[in-house]
């Protein structure tokens, strides 16, 4: 068995689709009969007010929450039948960054590198671009929320995966930071990547976008 390299993998087009999703959390039915399809180069935005179940939906798509009904497919194969393969193709970014406050930036990202396939990009260049190169040796606890956010963006860029999951990617970021996130998503999609985003504010972006509105 030969593992596919990054370039080969990027040449392939991928497809993430969902069929008839229903999710019940506690007392509430968050959504019912929800379907969508997303192909390489596309962006899927889950919209809705705060607390409407966007986060639950994006967690369910990423395989962290079990659905009441419905199936999520990765390249037309149900995700539950190929969980490892699916997770090898995605990276997760959320409000809770998943970075350790007691460790430095390099230590944090080093851990991530040993779990996931990583791209050929030079980490130094990525740090430079995100404006966190100076902070490399600092413990994450001493960084501001916005800076920590940028570190988790760096983790995203250094992973060599086609599918980005972003839960509320704009919180804790200034205007400049928001523009940067947009730019990164555009770049990723133009290279054949795809992105699932949950956001409560309008996102203006020049990428083929599918919008799913949750009441």
């Amino acid at each position, binding site marked *: 068995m030969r593992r596919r390299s*990054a370039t080969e*993998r990027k040449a392939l087009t991928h497809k993430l689709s969902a069929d008839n999703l229903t999710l019940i959390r506690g007392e509430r039915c968050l959504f019912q009969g929800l379907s969508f399809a997303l192909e390489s180069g596309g962006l899927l935005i889950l919209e809705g007010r705060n607390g409407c179940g966007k986060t639950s939906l994006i967690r369910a798509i990423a395989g962290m929450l*079990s659905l009441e009904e419905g199936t999520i497919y990765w390249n037309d194969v149900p995700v539950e039948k190929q969980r490892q393969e699916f997770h090898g193709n995605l990276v997760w970014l959320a409000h809770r960054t*998943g*970075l*350790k406050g007691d460790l430095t930036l390099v230590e944090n990202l080093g851990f991530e*590198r040993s*779990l996931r396939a*990583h791209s*050929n990009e030079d980490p130094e260049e990525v740090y430079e671009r995100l404006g966190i190169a100076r902070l490399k040796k600092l413990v994450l606890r001493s960084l501001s929320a916005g800076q920590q956010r940028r570190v988790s963006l760096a983790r995203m860029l250094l992973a060599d995966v086609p599918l980005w999951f972003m839960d509320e990617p704009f919180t804790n970021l200034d205007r400049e930071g928001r523009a940067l996130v947009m730019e990164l998503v555009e770049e990723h999609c133009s290279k054949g990547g795809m992105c699932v985003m949950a956001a409560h504010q309008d996102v203006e972006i020049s990428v083929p976008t599918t919008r799913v509105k949750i009441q």
Partner: protein
Amino acid sequence: MNVSMQASPGLLTGLGATTKRDLLLAWKRPGDVLNPLFFFAMVCTLFPLAVGPSAEQLEFSGPGVLWVAALLATLLSLNSLFISDFEDGSLDQLLVSPQPLPVLVLGKTLAHWLTSGLPLVFVSPILAITYRMPLSVVGVMMLTLALGTISLSLLGSIGAALTVGLHRGTALLSLLILPLAMPIMILGANAVSLAASNDIYSTGVWALGAYAIASLSLAPYATAAALRISNE
């Protein structure tokens, strides 16, 4: 097999990385490692004060007291096994990682044992000597503690995973784990007692070893399943 640089890292890399990260975190927060050890020493101090300092009494109750104290100290340290990962979102990252979750869990549990069980093993001789335990018996005690705390860490990780994110997690964890941990303590403490009375103690040691192997191969799966459930 042509493993290109971009392929997902192998299982052992994932296991090693998780262990290494948790050890690093423990190194940066030594209090989390030291507190259970102080607790262990204090429980061992309480008993002679409560039942009297006569040599005979101490010799007789030593193995039992040390084992109960080790069990409680391990329980104390288990509490924090997944909580910080749950709170800062690292758990989400582990759940969506391409590595099999049981392997990562094993890595974390291994780190837990290295920072809680192993220090107990090395601190216990000091306390054992104050309980007038002969040196030959101290060796047996260290062996049973080493084997027993492996099982305790693994078994406890299931309980920690089931209670992570619950309001009353601490009390609940003890309620869930103590009945499960009883056999380990029975085997360990009695093997040491047998050694102290020059009896054949190998049955207990072998049984502890078997228990450790069984929990090494089964517990990570249960913990992984419990983590997926708790983090929903």
